[in-house]
């Protein structure tokens, strides 16, 4: 029987849409908080220093009632993430520039800023370890985390190789640059508890961190998510720090305290994507078969562990790419440097290692005389293959489907070969227009046993008005979880009109801990819990309605329907409440059968399901300026099951542009442990004019969990950058192994390869020819 309304697979308007387009949506800095003071951090300008003295007297001279806190007068001094080495305020030693050393609060932001500037701190500057090489030289002392994979017989594979291909690939910081900077409000309650509202992804992380920090029991720390203007991982753990700061100030001041970062502070003092250096050495057969990969992964973790162990782990687990190999060895290190701790950024280590592997695969292709498509077709995982952790991919392997679809739509192979031939004929670089290809994978949900540890829980309940209310800790940070969960619940309830379903931003007072909004788990894992809890509740209503109607009743299309009549959902719900009282059902995470992973040996089911993707990027490189214009980008992604096509495509489109930005535009220069590109004007992200037409094609190869959804949020970050560099290589012959591929780096490669770009036809003649062909001067969609 087909449901009359099938919300999953449709694109209904998001419930927060009207508020966002009218300016009514309230982000943290929009909240009206009478009596609240503003908190500001005093930050160290040196990457490493001893703190000799903190003198707040000049600040108190400006503000007699100033609230001032240092490490000594905090309730405790750890921001709990995982390793507990992250202080809320530097005590005797500062380990990165911009590290907070003191906190002040004053009635207005301007006064708090002035007071903070007046706090005088005496430092003794210490030598700092900056960059991967300096960290490596320190040996074990600078190793914050290790991660390894050993699969198959590496020696035998290399012995059997017809050739060995090696390469080193490097990526730099990427700054999230969410449009809304970090913000947090802490309100001290009369009973000694705390209420926090913030721009965040993980309300229970904040609760846990603040509870440990203050010594309050978690139940006395209420955390609410405000409308959040973007996260991308940058609001996964950093809000924990702001929350501890705001909480400490609020408790000391006895009044609400708001902390909102200004843009420069947000850029320099909060986490970024880990810079990486990945070395790949591959044993390859003459026909292009990958026999083995020996991979070293180095991540620059910054000064404290925060998320680095997990980022490294995921990077390592994705390092060999979506490809079969007899043997894989990966050795990963997260190294401590005296810089702002790096952290979660959409993709979480996998973009870095897959950038390396994808560029490496193109290098292998050249070595064996295959084109980028053929080498990938030859080696891509298919059902039944075994990953480097020994996991058998029993189902839902969309790698070749994505690859073939991307290649077909873009006519990749023929066009790539034409460009290569044109360059060979010209003998001097060019043809200045090219295509690049990537293939990538991304495991959904927490790695290994993480979901079992989280034990995520979802509640669904009837409201007093007879509506279906979904309660989870999932934070809508733009991706559309509020509408997607409503669709899932409505679908599980036999096609309930969405007006009858309520979803809302999480509040720890009422939302159960379904786990953090990270790891591409929200639809796959939490969405499944929403479906199950909804079905359980609806089953109860059906039983009630069956009694009421005198015949078995089914919830369908917004009604309880039986052979003896039908009743509207709301009416049945209200009757139920009147007769039986509140109705609530819970679903808890259950691992798949056989979902085992050994965290010591890194063997087993690393992820229950993998999403797959393939990108084709088309570029034009200006021979005069070496600027790369992305003419079009196509991303074909297998995400298992699409809940909301428009917003799902939005994840792929938005993620692909972030990947292209990371690949070609976004550079964070550093000097002496300081970040130089510290403003919107200097940290360059794509504008609407830089962005190409983006085409997202969504494939559905249902996964094993629940209704078949897999992850989508992070997947696109794995594909755009290597495809971009592949396109630049096809356009110019220049192989870049370092991100971002800026014009300056193209020039270095040009001069290294001693290519003098040809004196191309004058612009006017080219334009005239283009006109004659009927092609617009504007963009063509990547085909």
């Amino acid at each position, binding site marked *: 029987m087909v449901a009359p309304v099938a919300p999953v697979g449709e694109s209904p308007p998001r419930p927060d849409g009207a508020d966002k387009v009218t300016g009514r949506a309230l982000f943290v800095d929009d909240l009206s908080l009478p009596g609240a003071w503003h908190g500001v951090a005093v930050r160290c300008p040196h990457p490493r220093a001893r703190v000799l003295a903190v003198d707040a007297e000049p600040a108190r001279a400006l503000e007699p009632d100033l609230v001032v806190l240092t490490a000594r007068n905090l309730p405790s001094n750890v921001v709990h993430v995982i390793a507990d080495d992250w202080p809320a305020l530097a005590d005797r030693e500062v380990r990165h520039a911009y590290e907070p050393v003191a906190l002040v609060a004053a009635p207005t932001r301007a006064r708090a800023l002035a007071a903070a500037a007046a706090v005088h701190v005496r430092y003794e500057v210490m030598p700092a370890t900056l960059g991967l090489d300096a960290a490596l030289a320190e040996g074990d002392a600078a190793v914050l985390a290790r991660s390894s994979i050993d699969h198959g017989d590496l020696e035998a594979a290399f012995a059997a190789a017809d050739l060995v291909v090696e390469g080193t690939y490097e990526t730099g910081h990427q700054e999230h640059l969410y449009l809304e900077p970090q913000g947090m409000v802490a309100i001290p309650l009369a009973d000694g508890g705390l209420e926090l509202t913030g721009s965040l992804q993980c309300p229970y992380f904040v609760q846990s961190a603040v509870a440990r920090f203050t010594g309050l029991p978690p139940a006395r720390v209420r955390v609410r998510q405000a409308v959040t203007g973007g996260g991308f991982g940058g609001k996964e753990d950093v809000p924990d720090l702001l929350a501890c700061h705001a909480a400490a100030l609020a408790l000391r001041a006895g009044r609400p305290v708001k902390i909102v970062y200004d843009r420069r502070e947000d850029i320099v003092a909060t986490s970024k994507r880990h810079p990486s250096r990945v070395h790949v050495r591959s044993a390859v057969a003459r026909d292009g078969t990958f026999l083995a990969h020996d991979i070293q992964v180095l991540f620059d973790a910054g000064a404290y562990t925060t998320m680095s162990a997990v980022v490294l782990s995921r990077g390592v687990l994705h390092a060999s790419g979506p490809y079969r190999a007899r043997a894989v060895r990966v050795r990963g290190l997260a190294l401590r440097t005296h810089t702002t701790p790096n952290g979660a950024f959409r993709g979480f280590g996998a973009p870095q290692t897959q950038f390396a592997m994808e560029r490496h695969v193109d290098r292998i292709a050249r070595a064996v005389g295959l084109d980028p498509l053929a080498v990938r077709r030859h080696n891509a995982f298919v059902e039944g293959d075994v990953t480097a952790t020994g996991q058998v991919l029993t189902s839902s392997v969309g790698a070749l489907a994505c690859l073939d679809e991307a290649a077909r739509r873009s006519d990749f192979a023929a066009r790539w070969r034409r460009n290569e031939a044109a360059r060979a004929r010209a003998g001097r670089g060019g043809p200045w227009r090219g295509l690049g290809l990537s293939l990538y994978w991304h495991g959904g949900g927490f790695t290994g046993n993480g979901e079992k540890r989280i034990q995520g829980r979802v509640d669904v309940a009837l409201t007093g008005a007879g509506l279906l209310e979904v309660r989870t800790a999932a934070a809508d940070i733009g991706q559309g979880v509020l509408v997607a969960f409503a669709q899932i619940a409505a679908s599980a309830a036999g096609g309930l009109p969405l007006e009858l379903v309520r979803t809302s931003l999480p509040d720890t007072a009422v939302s159960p801990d379904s786990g953090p909004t990270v790891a591409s788990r929200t639809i796959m894992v939490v969405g499944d819990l929403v479906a199950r809890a909804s079905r359980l509740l609806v089953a109860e209503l059906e039983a009630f309605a069956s009694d009421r109607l005198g015949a078995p009743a089914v919830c369908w299309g917004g009604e309880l329907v039986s052979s003896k009549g039908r009743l509207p959902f709301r009416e049945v719900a209200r009757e139920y409440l009147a007769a039986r009282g509140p109705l609530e059902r819970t679903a808890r995470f259950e691992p798949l059968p056989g979902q085992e992973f050994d965290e010591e040996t890194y063997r087993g089911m690393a992820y229950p399901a993998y999403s797959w993707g393939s990108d084709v990027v088309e570029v034009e490189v200006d021979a005069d300026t070496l600027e790369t214009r992305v003419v079009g980008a196509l991303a074909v992604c297998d995400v298992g099951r699409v809940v909301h096509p428009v917003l799902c495509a939005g994840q792929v489109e938005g993620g692909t542009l972030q990947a292209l930005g990371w690949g070609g535009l976004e550079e964070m220069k550093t000097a002496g442990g300081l970040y130089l590109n510290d403003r919107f004007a200097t940290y360059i992200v794509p*504008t609407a*004019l830089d962005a190409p037409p983006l085409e997202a094609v969504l494939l559905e190869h249902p996964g094993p969990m629940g209704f078949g959804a897999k992850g989508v949020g992070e997947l696109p970050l794995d594909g755009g950058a290597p495809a971009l560099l592949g396109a630049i290589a096809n356009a110019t012959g220049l192989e870049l192994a370092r991100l971002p591929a800026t014009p300056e780096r193209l020039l270095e490669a040009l001069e290294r390869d001693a290519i003098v770009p040809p004196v191309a036809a*004058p612009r006017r003649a080219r334009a005239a020819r283009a006109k004659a062909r009927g092609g617009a001067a504007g963009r063509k969609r990547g085909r």
Partner: protein
Amino acid sequence: MTRAFSPRTLADALRVLGDPDLAAVPLAGGTDLMVGLHTRAAPAAVVDVSRLSELRGVRLDGAVLDVGAAVTFAELGRDPLVLRHAPMLAQAARQVGAWQIQNRATLGGNIGTASPAGDSLPVLLALGAELECASTRGSRRVASASLHRGYRQLALERDELIVRVRLPRRRRDAVQVFRKVGTRAAQAVSKVVVAFTFARDAARLRDVRLAAGSVAPTPVRLVDAEQACEGARPSAALAAEVAALARAGVSPIDDVRSTAAYRRWVVGRLVERLILDVVI
């Protein structure tokens, strides 16, 4: 608190600017001054000159295109007189920042800020613009060629206000070309700016002017390159020679946006392209 003056007449504005105790600075679009408040102390006093009629409007004054200093880049980008007689200036105006900035930022402000990366400055150099400046001591003309004394230093007195920018009308046979290489396609500070104008005389180049920005502490005229062009026939050989002279004529630096090597290379390439693209 900053003292603010909103004079109705130019004379009133000049009086305020001329009072040394006030230490007033002119304010037009505010797109530089307001950003500066983040890092510098607010000025002691500002004079709003954005509505003074003497600084507004674009008109033809004989052989001169006379542009008010408080004309915005948005206005410059669509003004029929500018499009006709100084198209390079309109082109540059449309590449400043983005729409929101163009609606506020003014030509006079761009000159007064005197950033080495100011997009209009090489255009004014190439076109041989003249500034009409006023103070309580009277009015004077300053040629753009003598305007730039050093890094962010103009040959203007502290109390002088730029009132008009005067550009020779484009001759019918003159060609104007502007190229900006920025950090991205919009909202971009330039890495390299090149402004080029020439006239045709039979098959030869005449009245060649070539100016560049973001490649030296001030915008610069590439005089050696110009001289090599003067009277010459455009050819691949000339293009290569002029490019080399252009590269030698700039002194770019490494900074947060780009590298000296890249800037120098691009100047050469752009200039070579400009000569090659000349169609006689």
